[in-house]
């Protein structure tokens, strides 16, 4: 007589694959994750879908004691307004606008919030400092492999976005810097409580080499999402692939 099983292996496998497909599908229905015509990007897209599906998106990254603050290398651009301070990348264009702001102690600096917002405007440093601030001692995880801990003070990005009146069609927040650098994050990362526009580092004004006068901090992402030398923020419904140079939009690890 043929043995009857409640669950056969074949059934188990088919059920497993179907539910995996279901998991991936939720990503597709939400019009994301951004996909790429590149086989390596498959893994990035899968990581994005899996993390957005399985992880509680607003969990806080570990915060440390003041005594844990460590030395902190400044990499990438260290001064877009200086021809000799472009760090390890000779391709970064020189920014005359930044050089001018830098020599004037950033008095004329403003961060413009544009795109899918009800009230696009340029916020001055003083205005941004009047928002409720958040101070956090967190670990910076560089994609190169090193880590460093610093204390960051700034305004939660969510407050500024809400102040500008984010539209329902908004999906991504693209951050542009004076050194020509651009990074894009989704709204879950943008509204994370620890995602701040930082103007202070270790109790002082943000040093030039770490992105003065203001940089982004995205604590549950790899360091290269934390854009230095912020110039403007564009809220958009359109995915912009920042990966032209081969860098993944979402790594998450």
């Amino acid at each position: 007589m043929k043995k009857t099983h409640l669950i056969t292996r074949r059934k188990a496998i088919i059920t497993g694959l179907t539910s995996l497909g279901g998991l991936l599908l939720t990503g597709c229905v939400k019009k994301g994750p951004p996909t790429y015509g590149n086989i390596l990007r498959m893994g990035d897209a899968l990581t994005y879908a899996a993390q957005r599906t399985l992880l509680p998106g607003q969990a806080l990254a570990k915060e440390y004691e003041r005594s844990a603050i460590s030395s902190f290398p400044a990499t990438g651009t260290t001064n877009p307004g200086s021809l000799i301070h472009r760090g390890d990348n000779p391709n970064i264009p020189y920014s005359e606008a930044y050089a001018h702001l830098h020599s004037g102690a950033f008095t004329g600096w403003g961060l413009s919030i544009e795109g899918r917002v009800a009230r696009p405007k340029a916020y001055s440093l003083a205005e941004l400092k009047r928002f409720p601030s958040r101070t956090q001692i967190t670990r910076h995880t560089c994609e190169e492999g090193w880590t460093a801990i610093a204390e960051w003070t700034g305004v939660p990005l969510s407050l500024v976005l809400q102040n500008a009146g984010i539209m329902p069609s908004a999906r991504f927040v693209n951050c542009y810097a004076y050194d020509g650098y651009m990074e894009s994050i989704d709204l879950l990362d943008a509204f994370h409580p620890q995602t701040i526009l930082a103007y202070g580092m270790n109790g002082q004004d943000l040093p030039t080499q770490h992105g003065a006068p203001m940089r982004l901090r995205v604590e549950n992402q790899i360091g290269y999402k934390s854009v230095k030398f912020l110039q403007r923020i564009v809220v958009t419904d359109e995915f912009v692939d920042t990966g032209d140079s081969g860098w993944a939009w979402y790594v998450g690890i």
Partner: protein
Amino acid sequence: MRARYPSTLDTMRHKGWVRASHWIVTVSFFALAFSGAEILMVHPRLYWGDTGNDLTPALFEVPISRNYQHGGWEKTARFFNTPSSPVSASRTYDIFNKNGWGRSLHFLAAWFLVVTGAGYLLAGLFTGHFKDRLWPRSREFRLHLFWQDLLDHFRPLNQAATQSPHYGLLQKCTYFGVVAFLLPLAALTGLTMSPAITAAHPFLLKLFAGAQSARTLHFFASVALLLFLLVHVVMVIRSGFKRQMRGMTLGK
């Protein structure tokens, strides 16, 4: 005399899912080892604890790239007005960095390894594969059997010895260690390097004593896996390469 169990050809055959997962894991492992070496070349220093960078002391440094012991740093700036203040400095050196594709390849291969590995672990538990083949029996734990098995690995292997349907004690311990310990350790320490994952599951940082300790353990797990691979391939060649390859691909 070696301890042997009754042999039939049937018990010698590797099951289909064992063969499939073996080769998927093999290919993923090569991609992971290759891209892992590339990622390590970008920052070949290893640390213990939560932090570690070029401005802090390292446990040790692996001499594998031109980023090894580079000295291209500008004058350091103190964060605080204390003699032991942490410092900041910027690089004056164009570093080797191919992480753009390196990381993407590493994580794509990791997906294959983790999904296949999870399926293999579940199947291994539920089909009795681990219990029957990999779990060492208490009667196998005799000192003379251990010595015998160890010495056998250095003797010219004869056909009778390699025809055994069952793994020897050392094989069982090694395979079990790789499957149940080294590969899961590599996967978990890898996940511990993810800020998003440790934000959601902070126990990982506690378990591995910090993000940099996890990275260091990840490195040691990979080195152990590479050493295992080396011995594994040598033993496959010594015990009849063609027959073993046929057994692991076609199942006969």
